[in-house]
């Protein structure tokens, strides 16, 4: 009983630490991530007191770039996940409460969205528009990433809407909007949050994948994906340039997955009592 | 009662669950016996500990639950709590079988029911595939399934609830176990189907000579099936008696209260005599007598001193201070049937 709870707590702490590092890190480690040092003497240095994580081939401080990248990557994931959650939840709830033919129409769109490879769409979009500012790239990622979430939300909403307490509300004479707002939405937020946390992790990995093929966040802005991309040419010489951002991504994604799992089950939050 | 004659003897059984909310003493000092071939009903409401008692007989308690040291479960002369897991596994299904309340979840949806019955013979007796299948079909026919040869090839979802319960009985009784533990076997069924299944259980029991520990909350089922009755409340057996004694002269206020709370056909009243309050959680039993805050006959002694089982008459035991206080007992005027 307490083992899953422990896992969720660890995940929350880890994710919290990553977020905290992104927020206050650049403020504590006061080094310009884009400042180019003397190339002859300071490029590709291994970790040292002056540069705890070394420097890259442009003699920029890796720690500073990693922290700056964290800001961009996390903000990127958050924006993409928010867009996906809002669009997906709206479509899912609307579909669940609509007449059967409207529901089928919504779900056909969802099926279509799920059928098209997302990475391909993103590559085409970025290729077509050139390098997008990272914010717009994140929105694009959200717009192409809500389909699965909508399906989950619809299924859960339908289940709740035919459940006894919703029927009781209809029997009291509650209009549909009231049932949706008071009875369905509060009980479907767990599902939405869990799916959104996964979408967040997904967006970070997808951004890394896009960066890897040179279509991600535009340089010189540092994101974890672009750091990997910059470092890979020197993989044999300065492996930490690639490995460190990769580890950061891995930690964030795994922690987010564990957290989503916990949120979905709801147990740790529910057992703490009424305030949920 | 002596250790040597009883088929099953349980002494001071305690099963605790340790969790965030504290220690739940789900079963707390339960002692009883079951003789060869007899039917004993274990009656109680939800939270009384009757299902946990049943599962602990098969040692099927999962963490955080634990059978506490000092508990004794003796079956056919063997101390079950001292057996290694392999010996225990050999016993389950062969000497002690279990029938569950919800036949849909007790059956595996991806195998045919014939395969599942045959599996019992294959596991425990190493029967060949063909032989086990033949025995499975015969057993299914004995449980009253028409066209058993064909039905054996069906999957659980193709059968009705009553049919699935017949399949479970076939699995349980295939190897003529000495003891069948039936946990609310008819609760999920409609009345007309319940009647069929109870008849079937009685018939099969006569054929195999098995003893049955029947767990139920329904006194109608008790009256019909059992020779002896154990009433559980708060993780303890509060009363044990032969069935007619229990209905005619219950000695524990809880038993008497349950018997009066039931509506019965043919004896209408304007009000039912309900027992006030609800069962407290197993983490917070009251001090002294666990029933006292719902009892109409409570006095100081009930809070200060936990009652122990006292013999009311031979074979009739109750865990209540009234038993040793004849004056109060007479005043309490416990009666089974409503007047």
């Amino acid at each position: 009983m307490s083992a899953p709870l422990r896992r969720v707590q660890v995940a929350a702490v880890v994710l919290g630490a990553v977020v905290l590092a992104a927020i206050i890190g650049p403020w504590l480690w006061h080094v310009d991530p884009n400042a180019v040092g003397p190339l002859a003497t300071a490029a590709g240095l291994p970790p040292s007191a002056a540069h705890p994580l070394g420097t890259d081939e442009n003699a920029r401080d890796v720690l500073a770039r990693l922290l700056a990248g964290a800001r961009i990557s996390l903000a990127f994931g958050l924006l993409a996940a928010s867009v996906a959650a809002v669009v997906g939840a709206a479509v899912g709830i609307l579909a669940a409460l609509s007449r059967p033919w409207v529901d089928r129409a919504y779900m056909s769109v969802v099926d279509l969205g799920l059928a098209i490879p997302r990475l391909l769409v993103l590559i085409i979009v970025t290729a077509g528009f050139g390098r997008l500012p990272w914010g717009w790239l994140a929105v694009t990622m959200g717009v192409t990433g809500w389909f699965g979430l909508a399906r989950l939300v619809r299924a859960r909403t339908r289940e709740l809407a035919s459940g006894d307490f919703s029927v009781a509300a209809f029997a009291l004479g509650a209009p549909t909007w009231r049932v949706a707002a008071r009875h369905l939405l509060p009980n479907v937020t767990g599902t939405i949050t869990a799916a959104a946390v996964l979408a967040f992790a997904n967006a970070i990995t997808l951004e890394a994948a896009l960066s890897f093929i040179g279509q991600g966040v535009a340089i010189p802005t540092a994101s974890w994906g672009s750091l990997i991309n910059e470092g890979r040419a020197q993989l044999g010489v300065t492996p930490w340039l690639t490995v460190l951002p990769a580890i950061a991504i891995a930690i964030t994604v795994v922690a987010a997955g564990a957290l989503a799992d916990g949120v979905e089950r709801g147990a740790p939050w529910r057992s703490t009592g009424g305030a949920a | 009662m002596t250790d040597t004659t009883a088929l099953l003897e349980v002494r001071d059984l305690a099963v605790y669950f340790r969790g965030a909310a504290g220690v739940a003493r789900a079963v707390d000092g339960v002692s009883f016996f079951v003789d060869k071939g007899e039917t004993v009903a274990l009656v109680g409401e939800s939270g009384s500990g009757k299902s946990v008692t049943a599962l602990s007989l098969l040692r099927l308690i999962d963490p955080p639950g634990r059978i506490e040291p000092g508990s004794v479960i003796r079956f056919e002369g063997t101390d079950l709590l001292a057996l290694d897991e392999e010996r225990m596994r050999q016993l389950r299904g062969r000497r002690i079988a279990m029938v569950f309340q919800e036949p849909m979840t007790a059956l595996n949806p991806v195998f045919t029911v014939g395969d599942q019955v045959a599996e019992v013979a294959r596991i425990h007796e190493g029967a060949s595939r063909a032989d086990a299948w033949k025995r499975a079909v015969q057993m299914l026919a004995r449980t009253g399934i028409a066209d058993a040869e064909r039905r054996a090839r069906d999957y659980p979802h193709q059968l009705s609830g009553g049919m699935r319960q017949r399949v479970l009985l076939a699995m349980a009784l295939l190897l003529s176990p000495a003891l069948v533990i039936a946990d609310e076997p008819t609760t999920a069924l409609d009345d007309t189907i319940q009647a069929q299944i109870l008849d079937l259980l009685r018939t099969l029991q006569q054929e195999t000579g098995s003893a049955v520990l029947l767990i139920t909350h329904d006194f109608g089922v008790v009256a019909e099936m059992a020779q002896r009755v154990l009433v559980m409340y708060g993780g303890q057996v509060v009363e044990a008696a032969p069935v007619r004694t229990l209905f005619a002269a219950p000695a524990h206020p809880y038993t008497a209260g349950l018997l009066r709370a039931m509506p019965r056909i043919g004896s209408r009243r304007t009000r039912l005599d309900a027992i006030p309050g609800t069962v407290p959680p197993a983490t917070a039993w009251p001090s002294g007598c666990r029933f006292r805050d719902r009892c109409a006959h409570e006095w100081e002694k009930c809070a200060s001193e936990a009652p122990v089982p006292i013999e009311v008459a031979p074979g009739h035991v109750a865990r209540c201070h009234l038993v040793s206080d004849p004056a109060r007992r007479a005043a309490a005027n416990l009666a089974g049937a409503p007047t």
Partner: protein
Amino acid sequence: MSDASTALVRARDLTRHFAVGGGLFRKPSNPIRAVDGVSLDIARGETLALVGESGSGKTTTGRMLLHLERPTSGTVTFDGTDLASLDAKSMRALRRRMQLVFQDPFGSLNPRMTIGDTVKEGLLIHHLAEGAAADARTRALLDEVGLRPEWADRYPHEFSGGQRQRVGIARALSVGPDFIVLDEPVSALDVSVQAQVINLLMELQRQRSLTYLFIAHDLSVVEHMADRVAVMYLGRIVELATRDAIFAEPLHPYTQALRSAVPVADPNVRARRIVLAGEPPSPANPPSGCPFHPRCHHPAKDESCARLVPPLEEKAPGRLVACFKQPPSSVSWEAQQAAGGTRAPTLHLPVLATDARPA
């Protein structure tokens, strides 16, 4: 049937079909006839019990009476108003007068709402009270159903099954209904708590002059609560009579079997049991003729039972029974013979009384 002028709820030929199947490789099969031509009247202030086994269509019937499910065909009239004639807004307004209590004490309350908010919701929807007045009414309602008013701020998970069931009853009472459908309200409760809730429901009925449709499968509870009883089998009413008549002398062979199947809580009594052959058939594939004929024990059962659908007809004043083998019947013996009948109708009254077991 009761006098039309006193009937609060009146149903005529209610039918509800569900479409099933129809996958990629399968044709849609026959619709499930969950309810198949149910007519009944519920008089003001009475308790009509609707009895039947799982799948008999009792829950669907109850929900159609409240128009929570739309009938496939047939009409429901509430206090003289045909529910089908109402627009959505008027229907919602009428819901004040008809309420529902559920079987499952866990699923019927929103886990994210305090029990006070749950009970208050109806007051707010119908603008019966606002603000502090609504809170006061909520506390009074909790008190009326035997809960402490100060528990209003607690969430459902803090309560036992019986207490949650009281919350559900308070929610139904909040809007001041005339009619409540009680859908197995005590089936999920333990014996000791069940008695408390039954007493509460009967008291509320007396004090508030409520009309109940009491859906149940436990006949001993039905005998305790009901004024009249309707027995359903496979989507149809097969017998409808006063409580005393149905318990003293059930006429339909199915009612007789159901009555005899109730275990008697007395070890000195052995019930004479009518053991039915086989299992209830599926409503997707109901038998022809009388739906009960494959399991029937009536001595005059014959070929005609598989061919003719027995009408629900009056056998004695106020006693409706759907069996043409129990005389008198509007289906004449000649008509039965024409349908292959070989055994003349004869009154079948199996002894359901019980014997003392030899000591």
